[in-house]
């Protein structure tokens, strides 16, 4: 199967990079894969389900702190600690999602932003565990390769999960909620459950990535772990690449990371301004993102092919419905 071969080659290629790359390149790639992963996670709840969240960083921060505490106080191996960070983030997202997903549109977006600010305040105040504003120090990481492999693994898993989602009835239910939640409800879709499932997925992976991040930078403090900037970067990556698509977050994440590096290297003083201008231009001229532009040029296959494939070779039609 050429498709499986392609996936295998891509994974092998990505996995082999640390064998030839130096630490600077690895750092850049870790950051790229990290934000691409965060973009994929955001894409599930916001791109597919249509619930624009400005607060998924809450779960990134929870994952970062969980992993840091487990590593420092209980000497847990960092990959397990990162996984535990994801699990706690997912567990926490159940009650939070139950409450927050009652809000819609801008109210949900602002509500999630508020939630992340509350989380940051708790991290400041809960000194016995978080050491407040001083932050938690972890042992320094000397070998970046394992971090790189972990982040790439998570990002690749998210590409796979999104691809499955895009070709599943669960994915269609999420899209239906995005398009018309009341209409979906009246067709028998348990919208509360579907939204919650999407929300948990969009919390688990940022939690894992937060845990890896804590290990990677060897330091966690409230301001960086719950930084709105982290959410905004993921959101811009998805919007640039194409929300509610399989390849959008990857296209956006890679484009964004490369541009950020180039702009930063060439225009060290105004690179953030140029970056902002670029985002505005993209939203104005490519409101559906690069993935849509690529599709129109035939460079990228249209998404959600599973129904079309089945419909292309149907059983013979009968005149009346069952």
């Amino acid at each position, binding site marked *: 199967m050429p498709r499986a071969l392609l996936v295998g080659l891509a994974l092998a290629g990505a996995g082999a990079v640390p064998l030839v790359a130096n630490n600077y390149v690895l750092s850049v790639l870790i950051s790229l894969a990290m934000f691409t992963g965060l973009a994929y996670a955001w894409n599930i709840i916001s791109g597919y389900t249509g619930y624009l969240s400005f607060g998924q960083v809450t779960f990134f921060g929870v994952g970062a702190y969980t992993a840091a505490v487990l590593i420092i106080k209980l000497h847990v191996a960092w990959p397990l600690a990162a996984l535990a960070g994801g699990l706690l983030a997912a567990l926490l997202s159940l009650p939070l999602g139950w409450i927050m997903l009652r809000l819609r549109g801008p109210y949900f977006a602002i509500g999630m932003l508020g939630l992340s600010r509350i989380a940051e305040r708790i991290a400041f105040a809960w000194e016995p565990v978080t050491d407040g504003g001083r932050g938690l120090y972890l042992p320094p990481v000397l070998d970046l390769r394992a971090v790189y492999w972990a982040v790439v693994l998570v990002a690749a898993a998210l590409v796979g999960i999104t691809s499955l989602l895009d070709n599943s009835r669960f994915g269609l239910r999420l899209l239906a909620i995005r*398009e018309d939640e*009341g*209409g*979906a409800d009246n*067709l028998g879709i348990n919208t509360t459950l579907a939204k919650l499932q999407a929300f948990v997925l969009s919390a688990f992976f940022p939690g894992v990535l937060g845990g890896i991040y804590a290990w990677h930078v060897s330091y966690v403090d409230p301001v960086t772990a719950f930084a709105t900037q982290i959410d905004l970067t993921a959101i811009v990556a998805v919007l640039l690449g194409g929300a509610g698509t399989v390849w959008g977050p990857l296209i956006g994440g890679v484009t964004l990371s490369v541009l950020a590096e180039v702009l930063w290297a060439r225009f060290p003083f105004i690179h953030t301004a140029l970056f902002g201008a670029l985002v505005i231009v993209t939203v104005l001229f490519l409101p559906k993102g690069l993935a849509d532009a690529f599709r129109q040029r035939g460079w990228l296959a249209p998404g959600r092919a599973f129904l079309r494939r089945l419909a292309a070779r149907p059983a013979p039609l009968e005149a009346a*419905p069952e």
Partner: protein
Amino acid sequence: MLHVEGLEKRFGGLRAVDGATFRLQPGVITALIGPNGSGKTTTFDLITGNVRPNAGVVRFEGRDITGLSPWQVARLGLGRTFQLPRLFGEMTVLENMTAAVREGTLREVVHRALKLLDFVGLTAHADAPASSLSYGQRKLTELARVLMLRPRLVLLDEPFAGVNPTLARAIADRLLALQRQGTTFLVIDHDMPLVMGLAETVLVMDMGSVIAAGAPKDVRDDPRVREAYFGTARP
């Protein structure tokens, strides 16, 4: 089949539905008519759980469904369509048909969807985004989509409004074909000749309650109905 008793909904001081009571017989197309603002759509919303009643009971096939959520009502086999079709615009017609179906393998579901699209004459549009359809095509898609749930009772809110006469006739013929196969319908519409030819029973609502029920010709001659529509005749 459906048993509505003493249904009541107040919006502030307005009694939108005020003690509506009626029964639907299985396998029958029933029309629900009445002047604008008489509470027809609110009655639909109350039956399907989109609006919670202040009082009253809704029973579907003997089961109390008052206060259930719309998705729960839909899963029991009671489907509805809307005055303005509520399609999932950025999804294709086929995806619209498939999204909410739970039973069966995907292959079976797609097969059934294609058959129903054929039934409403939209096979050619299966892969088109729903947002690209004309108004009439949207009405047909919404009808086909609700049929995907294999409902035993379907509430149709103005299926003929804004649809050209040929298409309206086509929709009516589809409904009759489905009725012969055992589906029950409750239809709100203002197209009197069409409704009178389609429905075996007519319910008339005015000021939030059902003021008359019976065969089309009996209802048409009922003085209370004439009064509701045309006002009191002065001697």
